[in-house]
């Protein structure tokens, strides 16, 4: 490499997208690490499922871009976060570990979300302000408005970020949650991971509109569309929404266009309702590959670093599986524990 070329690289690095967003080189490499971690946890869970060791999983695969990007814009342990079942990436960024997630799918006593009681994907961790969800679709929306109302009443500078899919936006609870947040200008960031399907129902059989963001106008706050497979764009819109909420300007609705490349859950056969071509097309737009190319362009990642990251993650995930497998199941005596909250 001659020196002119070198200078060009350094310059482009300084003017890089992430530097302009105020993100350090370390942070974007950590983002990549989280992307790989989420994907690896997911792949490992599928393997465990096929081995008959665990019974049910819901996949984040394909949606890691919006999950990692948005979660990096939240303030860990300060903002309240209500992920939905697909948000493995969000949970990991906010501080849940692969061990925590494996304890949950193995239904172990030490599962921090529920002591092995909840279905997989019901992330929860009080200390990290990750609020566990109920299984019926969209119940988290009125709950999110309530959490944000509590913050507002207490005068606490916390934002509530709530995640859900496109299908959830057809639910009445969804409407009530957004309406309430709109009236009271609550500090909520609504993040819709529009993956085009609610199980087998494509978006055009679910609603008559193309952009779900259009719905925000009915509640008097902005609706933003973002490419959910673009990590930095996802980060940016979430960051702006958080700042808006902290200023007291009220909620923002973010629609992230993305795709789940896996079936809906480990019990679903998606070949019955969508073509392989469609799935392959989206695999080519994989958010992780895309971010990897970006990091390579700005000279923050090369094959050897990528290799190291993947090995590190794999080791961590394998260790988590061993740990969870060996840890004890909830005991019979504790059956009635955690049914009601005991102070």
């Amino acid at each position: 490499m001659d020196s002119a070329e070198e200078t060009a690289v350094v310059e482009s690095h300084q003017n890089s997208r992430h530097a302009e967003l105020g993100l350090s080189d370390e942070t974007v490499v950590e983002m990549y690490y989280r992307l790989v971690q989420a994907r690896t946890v997911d792949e490992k869970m599928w393997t465990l499922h096929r081995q008959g060791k665990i019974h049910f999983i819901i996949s984040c695969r394909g949606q890691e871009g919006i999950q990692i990007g948005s979660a990096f814009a939240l303030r860990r342990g300060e903002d309240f976060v209500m992920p939905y079942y697909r948000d493995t990436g969000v949970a990991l960024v906010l501080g849940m570990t692969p061990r925590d997630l494996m304890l949950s799918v193995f239904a172990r006593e030490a599962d921090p979300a529920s002591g092995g009681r909840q279905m997989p994907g019901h992330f929860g961790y009080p200390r990290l302000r990750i609020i566990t969800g109920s299984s019926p679709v969209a119940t988290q929306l009125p709950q999110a408005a309530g959490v944000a109302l509590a913050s507002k009443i207490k005068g606490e500078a916390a934002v509530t970020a709530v995640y859900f899919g496109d299908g959830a936006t057809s639910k009445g609870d969804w409407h009530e949650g957004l309406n309430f947040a709109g009236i009271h200008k609550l500090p909520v960031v609504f993040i819709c991971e529009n993956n085009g399907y609610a199980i087998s129902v494509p978006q055009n059989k679910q609603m008559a509109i193309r952009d779900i963001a259009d719905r925000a106008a009915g509640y008097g706050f902005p609706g933003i569309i973002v490419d959910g497979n673009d990590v930095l764009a996802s980060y940016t819109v979430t960051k702006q929404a958080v700042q808006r909420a902290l200023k007291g300007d009220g909620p923002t609705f973010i629609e992230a266009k993305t795709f789940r490349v896996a079936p809906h859950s480990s019990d679903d056969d998606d070949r019955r309702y969508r073509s392989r071509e469609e799935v392959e097309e989206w695999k080519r737009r994989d958010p992780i590959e895309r971010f990897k190319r970006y990091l390579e362009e700005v000279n923050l990642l090369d094959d050897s670093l990528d290799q190291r990251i993947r090995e590190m993650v794999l080791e961590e995930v394998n260790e988590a599986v061993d740990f969870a497998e060996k840890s004890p199941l909830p005991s019979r005596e504790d059956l009635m524990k955690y049914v009601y909250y005991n102070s």
Partner: protein
Amino acid sequence: MKQRSQASAQPRAVSLPLDKETLLHFLNKMILIRRVEEKVAEIYTRAKAGGFVHLNIGEEAAIVGAASSLADRDYLFTSYRDHGWALVKGVAPRAVMAELYGKATGCSKGRGGSMHLFDSKVRFMGGYAIVGGMIPIATGTALAVTYRGTDEVAMCVFGEGATNIGSFHEGLNVAKLWQLPVVFVCTNNLYGMGTAVRRASSVSEIYRKACAYDMVAERIDGMDVVATRDACLRAVERARKDHEPSLVELVTYRFRGHSMADPARYRTDDEVRWWRERDPISSLEQKMKDSGMLTQQEIDDIEAAVSRVVTESVQYAESSPAPGLDDLYKDVYVQSEGQ
């Protein structure tokens, strides 16, 4: 966006593009509603009618304009504020009054009372006491129409408060998605019980909510019977011919409290006076007189005829029998023949 607002915050004067006969018909129905409601208030105060009573006084133009845009074969669903709607759809005044008295001759056989008037013969499909509860039911009726391949329209009426309920969202989403022949009519009387619209709804102009469904929507001065009728006719035709649902917002005002039990202390006297000066009945009368379509004599004749109907319906209700004790379990479930 297929949306427009025809009403500013201020109601306009009544427009008069119609012939005298039609306008007289509207006036007649509006006066009928007003006088029936006044009588209902009286009998309720005298404890002759039980349960809750929600009056339509002030909303007569919205009711007559909207309900008269329907054909006999079309279906009408409303909230508990239903007396006027039932009358215009064709339920006999005496059957309405008898229902308020809880008599066996009432349109719901004395079981429903004020909030649950019902008469399937004239396709008045009921008042519903659960706020927003009628929206999925009306939408389902429109689905049944589509399924059968006939050409009826379902009109579904609710207050602005109901648009904050989940069933509103679910109903409108599905209606547009499946292109159902339904007209959603929101009577925006600015209050849901004691809660002003801006305190319960993140947008105060209800028609704007239609953007979430890509649905045609209009905001209309609901104190103007002709403008209301025009907008609703357009919506009914769109539903019938194109299977295109609509949301029509009628800006109106109830002159009395939410129910008979509400002294309405949450509104200023000035506000109420402002709206009373825009009384839909006297506005129409004045407008017709000004254009030489109406004489005081004709008004007096209408009032006299309506008064006879009201008196007769009260006598009918008072002299009718209460439902028999033996019939207590009748009409709880549908029974097939032979049972």
